[in-house]
């Protein structure tokens, strides 16, 4: 009865989603600004963990699920470093069971 459900790591989860990479950069971060960012809300809000921190902000747009939440928290709580738009038409994430 008490066995733990196997945790679904984020990597496992993201492997279940189909992405069609947009060659155009639809997220651009001015990472210099992030050095001064106290709260770094993007690290927590993104359900796909597009943003990670290793001495500086790194981001991988390929797993972006296009919620747009990072833009809001970055500009209202963070360092206003993210510029974000949807990927080009037909590119980006595709949900089969959304």
């Amino acid at each position: 009865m008490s066995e733990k459900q196997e945790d679904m790591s984020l990597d496992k989860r993201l492997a279940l989603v189909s992405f069609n990479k947009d060659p155009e950069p639809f997220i651009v971060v001015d990472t210099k600004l992030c050095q001064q960012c106290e709260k770094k809300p993007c690290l927590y809000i993104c359900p796909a963990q597009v943003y990670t921190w290793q001495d500086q902000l790194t981001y991988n747009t390929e797993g972006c699920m296009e919620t747009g939440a990072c833009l809001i928290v970055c500009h209202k709580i963070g360092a206003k470093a993210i510029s974000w738009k949807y990927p080009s038409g037909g590119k980006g994430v595709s949900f089969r069971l959304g």
Partner: protein
Amino acid sequence: MSLEGFEVAVVGAGPAGSAAALTLAREGVQVLLVERGTFPGSKNVFGGRIYSYALKRLLGERWKDAPVERFVRKEGITFMTADSSFSVEYESKDPTGSFTSIRSKFDKWLAEEAEKAGASLITDSRVDDLVLERGIVKGIIAGPDKIPTDVVIACDGTTTNLARKAGLASMLEPREVSIGMKDVIELPADKMEERLGLEPEEGAAHVFVGECSGGLRGGGFLYTNKDSLALGMVVGADDISTKKVPSHTLMDRLRNHRKVRRLIRGGKTIEYDAHMIPEAGPKMLTRPYTGGMLVAGDAAGHLLNNGYTFRGVDMAIVSGIAAAQTILEARKRKDYSAQSLQTYARRLREEPALKDMYTFSKVPRYLRNNRLYNVYPELVCNAAEAIYRVDGNRKRKIYKELRTQTKGKVSTISLIRDLLAGARTF
């Protein structure tokens, strides 16, 4: 397809956009429906349920052709601590009022209905900007294409680029949006029905409050598809950011609760989805119209989370219909100025289904009270434990027990204030 000669451009082939396009096309209006995904629904995620009335209004008896997963017979809510839970369940006499669905099927189907009515759908097309002439919207710009139209309906979702371009919205505040995530977990139908106590083909909707959100503003949800469960979390963007909880970790928190893990045991996770949800209501826009443009659906805040029902698709459909009707009237006058289109605001206010947004307009503020997530669920569970436990120690009357439980957790004044405010808000 020639992109000339359209009277109306509808941006976004979700439920609002398709409902608007369908309503207009049926009246012989030349409508272009533009979708950025490879097919309608491919970018969309929701919890899982659609209220049928809106579809009936749009399609009459043909609403029955909708891709239904299961009609919802059972409604439930569970308050949870780490190791206990208190659930309430309601079994409706009539499940046809709402159904679970999958957006890649539902949105696709609804857009096809719009096409059948005569609307032209283009997919794989991101609308980047509006054609503006002296502040009046005169069309859309999609990639290299400048598409002139008489009027535009922006149904471009929570992020609504177009309402911002038209000066109707500024960027939302983190407390005005939530982040929603869900796992779709494959489970054989008979197993699901057995676990949830359902007759074959019937469905359930369930809400979880407390431990699963780790005290953050938000909660969990469960919906039954035909042979999968949609299990997810919705949490406030401000809380996630300031309390530094990586959003996706809440999914495992929910899955590992004893109440939930029994339901999903042996299931296979087949997709992970996420989406942003506007929680500000219609006031997220200064107004839902401007010269040459109307805004509907999520983009206009047309959805309602009052803590026990979560409505988006039905309100999107109804607001899409209202937008289309406004345009049909304006078209007779051949006048798409802001003044002519302002009847849209009145329609939204007078439309009974959308009126709920105004009736419950104080709910978002009430739901920002974190005691709802980190005090009361525990209180409910502890009280139940005290009431049901018989261990040979002296039992006290229920009232006394409840008083004891609140001590040190919440002041009497806060408790009374929350109760009174709740009574006024809901």
